[in-house]
């Protein structure tokens, strides 16, 4: 009888354990949200009441006459207003493309430095900007085009993000990502000055394209090994 109770206990505990084991199998994927912190620059400039060309922070003295700088400089205000109007004039969608391009360039620059972990982190950020893309302001045909490009690009960004430490693998996906970005810029345009570069050494000359914000060559496919290999194909 005692044995029977013992057996029951054992069976009960094993059932519990089995439930726990199965329960543990369900992975809880934590979704990480990337919140880009906005850094605001709020330094207000003041000028001398006698010499408006002399500017500095509040409380400082004019270098010409020693008077306190008291006049708030209006110029900076007009500049910030200009920036604002430019931003309003541009559609939210071009901002999306610009954000994608910016993050892509960070991936590129990490690969130039042979920084596999940096490339992974930058690709993760790129993935987040792709996921946050706002396509409501463009018509259906353009939207389809964008989603097609973004879907492919997202996959490559994901692979780059997941393979820190395997830089050769990351570079393979970077080549395909570069093609997507090139098509995206071609279709939707960008406010940035960009160049398409090409390395004839990479992948037997098949896929060694990349997009750069620099006029000189910094090769993301070879990094320090052959930093200046390649040439500019065209301005975008």
């Amino acid at each position, binding site marked *: 009888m005692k044995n029977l109770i013992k057996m029951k206990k054992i069976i009960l505990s*094993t059932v519990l354990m089995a439930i726990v084991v199965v329960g543990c199998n369900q992975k809880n994927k934590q979704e990480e949200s990337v919140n880009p912190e906005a850094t605001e620059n709020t330094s207000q400039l003041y000028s001398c009441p006698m010499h408006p060309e002399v500017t500095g922070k509040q409380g400082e003295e004019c270098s010409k006459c020693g008077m306190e700088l008291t006049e708030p400089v209006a110029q900076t205000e007009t500049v910030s207003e200009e920036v604002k109007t430019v931003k309003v004039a541009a559609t939210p969608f071009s901002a999306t493309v610009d954000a994608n391009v910016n993050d892509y360039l960070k991936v590129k620059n990490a690969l130039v430095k042979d920084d596999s972990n940096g490339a992974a982190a930058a690709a993760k950020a790129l993935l987040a900007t792709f996921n946050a893309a706002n396509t409501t302001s463009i018509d259906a045909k353009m939207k389809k085009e964008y989603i*097609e490009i973004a879907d*492919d690009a997202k996959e490559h960004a994901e692979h780059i993000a997941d393979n820190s430490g395997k830089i050769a693998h990351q570079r393979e996906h970077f080549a395909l990502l570069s093609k997507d970005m090139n098509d995206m810029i071609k279709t939707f345009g960008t406010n940035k000055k960009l160049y398409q570069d090409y390395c004839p050494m990479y992948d037997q000359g098949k896929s060694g394209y990349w997009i750069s914000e620099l006029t000189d060559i910094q090769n993301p496919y070879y990094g320090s090994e052959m930093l200046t290999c390649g040439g500019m194909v065209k301005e975008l």
Partner: protein
Amino acid sequence: MSSIIKKIALSGSAIFLLMQLYQPERNIDYVRVSPMHFFKTFSVPAKVQDVLQTSCFDCHSNNTNYPWYSYVQPVRMLMDSHINEGKENLNFSEFGTYSKRKQRSKLDRMIKQIKSDEMPLASYTMIHRNAILTNENKALLLKWIEKKSDSILANN
């Protein structure tokens, strides 16, 4: 002392038996081949079809050829996680649903993965010896995929 060993052995085998109750749906299409299948999207030569079938489709299609030990847990769970990951990255049964861009980039990835011997996975070929790509089959496969990839590029 012996009672503890007995307990562990008993609970261990009880867990093992209970695990066998978990038999999720199998990755089998029961000959209902999707019209979006790779073989229907492209005209694939029979030889290439055979190689793809034996070396790739267990993990990269909606139709896995399950071995007998797939009925045993936890082997099955391990297998399923591999199949899910494989299908997520490339599913030949749904290749036609991919955009032209994605199709080309997938073909390109196939070439790179086969060339670098990363696919088929070593852990898979260890058991499925017939899935190992011989040099001859590898060349056959690569030649065909490269041709296809170039033709998609030329059409766009």
